[in-house]
């Protein structure tokens, strides 16, 4: 009983130590504002403008990925031989008669076949204009495998006939790039999350053991980490993922790759956790808890872990980009995920040779999605790292 009381007074005392100056200023003189550490972190995070913007960008990305069926006009693997390598369509507010409208629309396509190279080229037909319909009802699907619906964010209505809308162009089989990038986001963004979670588990457990107990077990774990960090890991992971059986299903392969990727991430996290443990082990509040007879597990989980969760969240965020980049790289080389799974890396595989890229540069657009999300994760991670220690500076 005594132990828990002391604890309570200790934790409630810490926010009072560093009073938030900016907020007190506009409050009444006598009124003392008390901000929780969470609030302090939020204020600090808000000051990092790029981080806030990036967080918003990521939120949009994840939202779109979550509702991929709704946001994508077509099935990502539906091909159409009539529309190969269609360049991104221009969205126009001028309709077929040359008048301005408030509805966005696209022009029809006229295809030509080059008599010598037999390559099909497309020309926009400015006289045929088809408005874009929003919340169109077509192609029924099951949202999250539960709700039957057929609403899509946008599409061409029935008057367009069999013309399709390609906002980001189409690939060599006439598949809609926009739909593919959206579905790819689902895989590429989730694989980062899932494997970061795995490496977190590994990192916290091993780093925790290493930092809390020290001694030979610390030594062993540190040598393993040093080994992993001193060899070029890429060829190793390439070899490992090449060894995944070809007979595996898409889902099995996804989790296989996830496991392989998280084996990269855990070393950095384990180092961080260990460093934190080493620093905290000698703190007074840990000593106080120990003197009160708290068990090891209780000290670790109730006293030490809460004081560095924010740091861990920050370094987690910073390690997601590496995972996304590695997955993209592996899939690009054909060693990671494979079609028909759609990830950004798989999509970039289509742009592997220079002739295709020269012919259809829009196939590089999934790369832009990779760059944006990796940048955003870096900024958010930076902001979180600064905010993780709100009592600093």
């Amino acid at each position, binding site marked *: 009983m005594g132990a828990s009381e002391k604890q309570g007074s200790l934790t409630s005392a810490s926010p009072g130590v560093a009073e938030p100056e900016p907020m007190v200023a506009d409050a009444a003189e006598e009124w003392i504002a008390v901000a929780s550490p969470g609030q302090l972190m939020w204020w600090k995070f808000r000051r990092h403008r790029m981080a806030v913007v990036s967080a918003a960008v990521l939120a949009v990305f994840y939202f779109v990925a979550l509702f991929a069926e709704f946001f994508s006009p077509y099935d990502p693997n539906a091909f159409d031989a009539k529309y190969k390598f269609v360049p991104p369509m221009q969205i126009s507010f001028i309709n077929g008669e040359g008048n301005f409208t408030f509805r966005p629309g696209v022009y029809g396509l006229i295809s030509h076949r080059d008599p010598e190279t037999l390559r099909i080229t497309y020309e926009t037909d400015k006289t045929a204009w088809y408005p874009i319909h929003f919340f169109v009802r077509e192609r029924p699907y099951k949202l999250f495998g539960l709700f039957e619906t057929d609403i899509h964010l946008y599409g061409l209505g029935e008057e367009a006939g069999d013309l399709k809308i390609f906002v980001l162009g189409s690939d060599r089989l006439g598949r809609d790039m926009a739909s593919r990038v959206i579905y790819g986001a689902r895989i590429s963004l989730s694989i980062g999350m899932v494997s970061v979670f795995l490496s977190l588990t590994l990192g916290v457990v091993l780093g925790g053991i290493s930092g809390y107990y020290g001694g030979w077990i610390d030594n062993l774990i540190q040598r393993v980490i040093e080994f992993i960090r001193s060899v*070029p890991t890429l060829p190793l992971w390439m070899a490992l993922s090449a060894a995944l059986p070809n007979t595996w299903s898409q889902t099995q392969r996804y989790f296989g790759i996830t496991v392989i990727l998280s084996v990269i991430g855990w070393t950095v996290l384990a180092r961080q956790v260990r460093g934190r443990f080493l620093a905290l082990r000698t703190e007074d509040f840990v000593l106080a808890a120990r003197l009160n007879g708290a068990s090891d597990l209780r000290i670790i989980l109730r006293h030490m872990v809460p004081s560095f969760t924010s740091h861990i969240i920050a370094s987690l965020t910073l390690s997601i980009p590496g995972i996304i980049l590695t997955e993209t790289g592996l899939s690009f080389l054909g060693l990671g995920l494979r079609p028909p799974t759609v990830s950004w890396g798989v999509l970039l595989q289509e*742009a592997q040779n220079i002739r295709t890229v020269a012919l259809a540069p829009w196939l590089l657009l999934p790369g832009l999605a990779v760059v944006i999300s990796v940048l955003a994760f870096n900024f958010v991670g930076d902001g979180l790292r600064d905010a993780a220690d709100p009592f600093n500076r």
Partner: protein
Amino acid sequence: MLQFIIRRSLVALVTIWIISIVSFAIIQLPPGDFLTTYAANLAAMGERVPEQQLAAMRERYGLGQPIVVQYLKWMRGVLQGDFGRSLEWGVPVSTMLWDRMGLTVLVGLSSVLFVWSFAIPIGVYSAIRQYSLGDYFFTFIGLLGLATPNFLLALVLMWIGFAWFGQNVGGLFSPEYSNAPWSVGKVIDLLKHLWIPMLIVGTSGAAGLIRTMRANMLDEINQPYVETARAKGLSERRLIWKYPVRVALNPFISTVGYALPDLVGGVLITAVVLNLPTVGPLLVRSLLSQDMFMAGAIVLIISVLTVIGTLLSDILLAVFDPRIRLE
């Protein structure tokens, strides 16, 4: 000093030994033994392997014997420069590797030099002109370099070269030199092509190092000793390069050790896109076709070279900074 070098070398030796085990494990990864695959491959092409030869190979690699024996037999071969036979090409792995390995090391080394010669001055500049336009510019470029996968940068550069300059920027040699024996002309041709992979691998490698260098410099630049030097009337230029830069370089050199493995990975992937005659494309190909002796050998050599590079940078660090030797 000598003690330090010996200790570090021993650690490196142990690392190399573990690497050899890992590489051997990679060879064993695919199901079934490779000899059956080899015979099946040849049979598919309409060739028959004489039973005698198969038996000889079985003996040579210790197939059917305990795994430790297989490992020892493989290691003995490796130490004598025999990495086994490539199943895909039907020739000894070593004959295919050495040429490409030389070029790989060349691309890797030149990228390292490129990274160093850019990251250090830019990091110093960003620190002494903190929050200036230039600082923001380099930070932005650095972040972009960090966020762009190497192969994407390579693709974009190739596309720009192809679409706007009508040039194919891939490869390390012009067609007329690719199979020619070494000559002055070939070396010049190589240098003309080398800068592109160097630039691509360098930008992503440099980004991290610029940030490290900048942070280290910022830690040092407000130290009392800098103030003292300034008070003595030392010119700003001399002062910066003589004191804080030297101190800031130390953690920098030690990060280079960890940067090297990443850099090697970058070289591998970039080489695939640019179609360089290095081991990168060979590794990917061998992995895709499960040509495991080839893959294992490449992983082994690349890793060992990296460990040696790291060892050298550690020793270099100890030469620069006596504190390290006492550790």
